[in-house]
């Protein structure tokens, strides 16, 4: 039997900052991390003396490959003025900084440290697309890669299984994409901060200025159905089902619960954390669910003493649109096979009963892989503290969750934050 897990000391989140996400020719991972670090310090209501930080945990997938630089925890530590305090790097593919967050939580819960800096960073846009794909492919399962699977290919395969089992179609994936763009248009830090209507208008204008035939799409779905505007990547996954290639960084400050009020009158508390591992396509009995996400969600919700229903909004790992459908089901927000209907009905929109990916998600906020887990938690922080501006979830939510996937399901984490 699984035992219900608890922290022996409560942990609070008292600061959070993220850099702009995007593709930056002239800014490297140190520049981006410093931007996030300064933003985090500025977010601490009662101020933070960096000398009070006891240790640093950094999520970074592969500076080794993308910019030929290892050991990024300690090297960044010097740039931040944290030397000689310890720096530890965690790697779990796209879940790298969610793992750093967990390590930070454990370090404080054990009583060993009082204040821990958790960060995530990736600088992956400098190489050609094939080079980026090769770097990401290093996290793939060798057996799958050898017969020709790509990351979009794995998620395309999951999509055909989901369509076949539940009667969904490409049109339902489009609903996810449209919502992601609508939310990101209200997020100034997002990489693709534009609605699909904005994207369509820009493309029309461009065609006009170049003297080409101006396309005539009556609505966003017509645009998404147009193979010239939205070409296939790995059937049924098309370009607008995929997250972009991104650079970015995020910083979070964790402290012992009893110290939280020294930093802010509005702290958030770590109510539940879960992490689990999963297996490859051929070893999964059911391709329409992420075993690791279901396990991690149960662990996190049990620890928080809540049912899935009580989570008021969530950031989930939508590296491809189909992944959002699986995750909202695996988290227990909707029954298996009902996720696509819930999205179609608008339940996951900002004004719906369960807003999902209010930040725009990986699809539009961007997916600098090592920063994503921390950036999801940043969005939950922003929403719970009522600082999300135009994309604020209404009704002063108290409980929010973040779910982060590594690779094609090999790692999954779920974090529940609470405002008391």
């Amino acid at each position, binding site marked *: 039997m699984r035992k219900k897990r608890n922290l022996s000391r409560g942990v609070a989140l008292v600061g959070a900052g993220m850099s702009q996400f995007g593709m930056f020719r002239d800014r490297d991972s140190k520049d981006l991390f410093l931007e996030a670090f300064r933003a985090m310090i500025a977010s601490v209501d009662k101020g933070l003396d960096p000398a009070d930080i006891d240790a640093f945990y950094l999520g970074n997938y592969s500076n080794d490959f993308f910019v030929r630089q290892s050991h990024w925890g300690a090297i960044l530590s010097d740039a931040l003025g944290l030397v000689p305090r310890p720096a530890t790097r965690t790697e779990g593919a796209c879940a790298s900084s969610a793992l750093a967050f967990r390590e930070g939580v454990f370090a404080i819960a054990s009583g060993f440290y009082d204040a821990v800096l958790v960060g995530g960073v990736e600088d992956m846009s400098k190489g050609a697309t094939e080079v980026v794909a090769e770097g990401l492919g290093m996290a793939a399962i060798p057996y799958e890669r050898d017969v020709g699977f790509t990351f979009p290919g794995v998620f395309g395969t999951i999509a*055909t299984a989901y369509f076949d089992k539940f009667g969904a179609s490409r049109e339902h994936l489009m609903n996810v994409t449209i919502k992601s763009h609508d939310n990101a248009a209200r997020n100034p830090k997002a990489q693709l901060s534009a609605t699909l209507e904005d994207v369509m208008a820009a493309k029309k204008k461009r065609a006009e200025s170049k003297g080409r035939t101006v396309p005539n799409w009556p609505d966003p779905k017509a645009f998404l159905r147009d193979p010239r505007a939205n070409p*296939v990547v790995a059937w049924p996954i098309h370009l607008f089902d995929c997250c972009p290639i991104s650079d970015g960084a995020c910083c979070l400050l964790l402290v012992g619960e009893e110290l939280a009020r020294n930093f802010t009158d509005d702290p958030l508390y770590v109510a539940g954390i879960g992490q689990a591992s999963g297996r490859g396509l051929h070893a999964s009995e059911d391709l329409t669910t992420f075993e690791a996400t279901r396990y991690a969600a149960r662990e996190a919700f049990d620890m928080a003493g809540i049912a899935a229903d009580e989570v008021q909004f969530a950031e989930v790992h939508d590296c491809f649109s189909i992944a959002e459908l699986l995750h909202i089901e695996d988290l227990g927000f909707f029954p298996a096979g009902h996720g696509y209907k819930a999205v179609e009905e608008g339940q996951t929109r900002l004004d719906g009963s369960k807003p999902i990916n209010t930040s725009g998600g990986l699809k539009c906020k961007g997916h600098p892989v090592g920063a994503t887990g921390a950036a999801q938690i940043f969005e939950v922080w922003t929403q719970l503290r009522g600082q999300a501006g135009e994309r604020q979830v209404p009704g002063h939510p108290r409980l929010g969750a973040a779910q982060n996937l590594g690779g094609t399901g090999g790692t999954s984490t779920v974090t529940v934050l609470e405002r008391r």
Partner: protein
Amino acid sequence: MGSRCLPCQAVFVPPRALCPRCDSSAMEWQRMDGRGKLVAFTCIAIGTPAMLKQGYGRENPYCTGVVELEENARVVARIQGVDTRNPATISVGMPLQVDFLREDSGSGSRTVLAFKPLPAG
């Protein structure tokens, strides 16, 4: 070839030396008949570097999928003999038979597990 766990009879392709279900190392070889059905698939337009080198691409996508063998094990494989430019013609559940491929691996040739539709009747 796959492996069969003697205590619990689970079949694994590719073969495993340790059974993840019961932790036994008592395995025997299991020959596969090479028939199965398609569980899920994708048609990849932007392929791996190795596939792009072979001439696959936007105009010429390739199909990969998950196949459930009659021996009750699942494999991932290339799917041949299907219309990858019209994925709607490929259906989950279609019967398949094994059809190994020889491919240039850059440093010699290698065998790739592939399947093709089982002719009707």
